[in-house]
C-alpha cells in the first residue's frame, strides 16, 4: 500500500514537472502572465491608488476581496482553536500553590482556604512550575518595546516598502508571545487578557468589512475605497490610499490577536493556567 502511494506521488510529481516544461521561460517579459493584467498593475497602480508598492496595491485594492477573506481565514482559525481547545469554567477541586517571592518558599493552600487573587509577595504557580531566568526576562523587557514599534512601522509603511498588515501583525503578535514565554502565561494574561484578545480578533476583521461596507453607504460598490473621498474631503485616488491603510490596520489587529490567542490556547492546552 505504501509503495502504491509512493508511486502515485511520483506519478503526480512527474506530471507536474512534465507539464511545467512547456511553461514560458523564467522571467520572460513576453510570457502571458506578464502581458495580460500585470502591465495594468505596473503602469497604473500609482496613478490609480497613489501607492508606490505595487504588491500592496494589488493585495489590498485590486484584489482586496481576496485579502478580506484571507483575513477571515485567520479569524476562522482563531475561532476554531477557541472552539475546539478552550476549556471554559474554573476547576475548584484542586488546591492552589503559591510561591513566596522574597524567600522562594512554596505554600500549598487546600480547598476552602482563603486565597488572595493577587499579591505583591506571592505568585500563583502550577505543579510544572520552573524558575525563570533573570537574563531572559530582562532581555525580553528590552526587546519587546522595540519589536512592537517595528511592527507598527511595518504596518504603516506597507504602502512604500515590503510590509503591511499580515507581516506587521505577526511581529506584533510575536512580541506578546515573547513576553509570555519569558515570563509565564498568567503574567501575560494579566497584561493582555483573553477578553482583549477576543475583542481584537473580531475588531480587526470588522474594521476591514466596515471599511468596505462604508463604500456601500456612500453609493459605490463594496470595497470601492474611492467613495471615501466624500467624508474625508480628499481626492478619489488619495482616498484609495487611505482605504488601503484602514484595511491594513484591520488585518494587523486580527493577525496579532489570533496569533496571541492561538499561543494562549496551545501553550496551556486550553486551560489558560501557567502554560509553557
Amino acid at each position, binding site marked *: 500500500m505504501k509503495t502504491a502511494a509512493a508511486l502515485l506521488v511520483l506519478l503526480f510529481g512527474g*506530471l*507536474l514537472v*512534465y*507539464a*511545467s*516544461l*512547456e*511553461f*514560458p521561460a523564467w522571467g520572460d517579459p513576453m*510570457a*502571458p*502572465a*506578464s*502581458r*495580460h*493584467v*500585470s502591465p*495594468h*498593475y505596473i503602469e497604473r497602480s500609482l496613478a490609480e491608488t497613489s501607492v508606490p508598492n505595487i504588491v500592496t496595491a494589488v493585495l489590498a*485594492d*485590486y*484584489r*482586496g*476581496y*481576496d485579502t478580506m*477573506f*484571507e483575513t*477571515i*481565514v485567520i479569524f*476562522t*482559525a482563531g*475561532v*476554531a482553536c*477557541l*472552539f*475546539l481547545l*478552550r476549556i*471554559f*469554567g474554573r476547576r475548584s477541586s484542586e488546591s492552589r500553590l503559591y510561591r513566596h517571592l522574597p524567600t522562594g518558599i512554596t505554600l500549598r493552600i487546600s480547598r476552602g482556604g482563603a486565597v488572595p487573587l493577587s499579591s505583591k509577595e506571592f505568585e500563583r504557580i502550577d505543579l510544572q512550575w520552573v524558575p525563570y531566568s533573570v537574563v531572559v526576562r530582562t532581555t525580553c523587557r528590552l526587546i519587546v518595546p522595540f519589536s512592537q514599534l517595528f511592527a507598527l512601522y511595518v504596518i504603516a509603511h506597507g504602502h512604500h516598502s515590503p510590509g503591511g498588515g499580515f507581516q506587521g501583525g505577526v511581529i506584533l503578535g510575536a512580541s506578546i508571545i515573547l513576553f509570555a514565554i519569558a515570563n509565564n502565561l498568567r503574567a501575560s494574561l494579566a497584561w493582555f487578557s483573553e*477578553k482583549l484578545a*477576543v*475583542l481584537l*480578533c*473580531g475588531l480587526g*476583521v*470588522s474594521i476591514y*468589512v466596515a471599511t468596505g*461596507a462604508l463604500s*456601500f453607504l456612500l453609493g*459605490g*460598490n*463594496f*470595497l*470601492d*475605497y*474611492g467613495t471615501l473621498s466624500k467624508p474625508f474631503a480628499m481626492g478619489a485616488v488619495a482616498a484609495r490610499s487611505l482605504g488601503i491603510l484602514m484595511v491594513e490596520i484591520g488585518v494587523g489587529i486580527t493577525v496579532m490577536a489570533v496569533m496571541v490567542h492561538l499561543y494562549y490556547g496551545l501553550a496551556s492546552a486550553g486551560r489558560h493556567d501557567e502554560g509553557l
Partner: protein
Amino acid sequence: MTSQLPAFIILLPLTAAFGAFFAGWWFRKAVYPLVVGVLGLCVLLAGGILHAVFDHGSLRYFLGGWPPPVGIELHVDSLGAFMLTLVSSLSLLAAIYAKPSVETELADRVALFWSLYLLLTTGMLGILITGDVFNLFVLLEVASLSGYALVGIGRGQALLASFRYLIIGTIGASFYLIGIGYLYAVTGSLNMVDLGRLLPPLYGTRAVQAAFIFILTGFAIKIALFPLHAWQPDAYTYAPSGISVLIASAMAKTSLYALIRLLFAVFTVDFITVYRPLFNFLGWMAALSMIAGSIFAIRQRNFKRMLAYSSVANVGYIVLAIALVPATLQGLAPALVHILNHAVIKACMFMAAGAFIYRFDRWDIGEFTGLGRRMPWTSFALLLAILAMIGMPPSAGFVTKWYLVLAIIEAKQYPMVAAVFFSTLLMIVYFWRVVEIIYVRPERSPVPTAVRVEEVPLSMRVPCVALGIATFAIGPVWMAGILTPVVTAVNTAFGLGGQAP
C-alpha cells in the same frame, strides 16, 4: 438596489458571524435569534437574486469598482442563483434543526458554534457567487476550515475524523490551487469568463491538460468520489447532527457546483469534446463509485456511516450525469435534478439519524426497533426519504433515475444503465433493512404494553418532516416543468444541450 444584491448575500452572514462571536462574550441570548434571522434573510435575498437573474440575465458585480480581469468580480448566473437558493434554504433548515442538540451538547460554546456555522455558510455562498478562480479557492478555505472545526467538536472519534478530513481536504484544495496556478502561468488571468476566452488556443498544451487533471482530481477529493472518499464516512458519522446535515447536503453540493463551473465555464464544452476519453474515464469512475459506495453501505451497522457511503454512491450518479453531458442533448439537466434531489433527501435522512441519536442515543441500525411507534413523525419522514431515494414514482429519486437513464441511452453507453439498476438494487437492500427494523421488527427488551410517543422537540421535527414531504413534492415539480426554465438557462449559459427536459 438589485445591483448590490450579490454583495449583500455575502456580507449578511459574514457580519452576523462576527455578531454571534461578540454576542457570545457579552450578550449570549441574542445569538440564536440573530443566526436564524440572518439565514432567513439570506433565503429571501437568494430568492431575489434568482428573480433578478431571470429578469435581467446574469448579475456581474465589480468589487472595489475594478472591472475584471484587473479586479475580482462576483458573477451570478442561473446555475449560481439556483444553488444559492438551495444552499441558503438548507442552511436555514439545518440551523433550526440543530438548536436543541447544540444547546445540550455544547453548553458553553454555543456562540462559537454559531459563529463558525455562519462562516461555513458564508464560504459556501461565496463559492456559489464568485467569478474568479482564485477567490473560489479562498472561499473554499473559509468553508473547509470552519467545516473541520465543526466536525471536530462531535462525539466519539470526531477529532480524529476531523484531522483526516483536514489533511485530505487540504490536499484536494492544494490540487485545485496547483491547477489554477498552471492556468495562470499560461494565460495570465484568474477571471472565469476571461479564462474561458483565453484558453481555446491553448487546449493542446501540456500545462492546460495538467491543470485540468489537477482541478478534476482536487474536486474529486472534495466531493468524495470513490476511491478518493476516505475522509468522508468518518467525518459525516462523528460530526454533530446539525453539521452532518449541512455538510452532507449543502457542502457536498457546493463542491459539485464548483466542479461544474470550472468544467463548463472555464474549460467549456469544446475542451471536453476534444478530450472525450478523459470524460469517459470520469464516467467509469462514477459508475464504480455508485456500486462500490452501495456495497460499502450494505456492510455498515452504524446508520450515519451507512448514509455517508450512500452519499459516495449518489455523488457517482451526479458525476455520471456530468460525464454524459457532451453526449446528450439534455445537457446538465440530469446532474441538476440529482443535485437538488439528493440534497433534500440526504438532509432529511441525516436529520432523522440525528433525531434518533438525540432522543435515544441510538446509532446502530440494529437498535432502531420500535422507533416507528415511539417517534412516528420522524420515522415517517425517514420512510418518505428512503422511498424517494430508492426511486418510487412520483418521488424525487424516480425523476433522477428517469433523466439519467434517458441520458445514458441517448449517449449509447448501455453498460451504465446496468450500473444504475444494480446500484438501485443494492440501495433497496440496505435501505429496506432500515425500514423493516424501524416498522416491523419487535423490540427485544420487555415491551411495555402501551408504547409512549417520545418525539424530538418541534424545532427538530418540523424541518425533518418538511424535507420528508419535499422529497415527494419535488418529483411532480420537476415533471410539471416548473424548474425547466432554470435548466434551460443553465444549458444555454454553458452552450450545452439542445432541448429542455
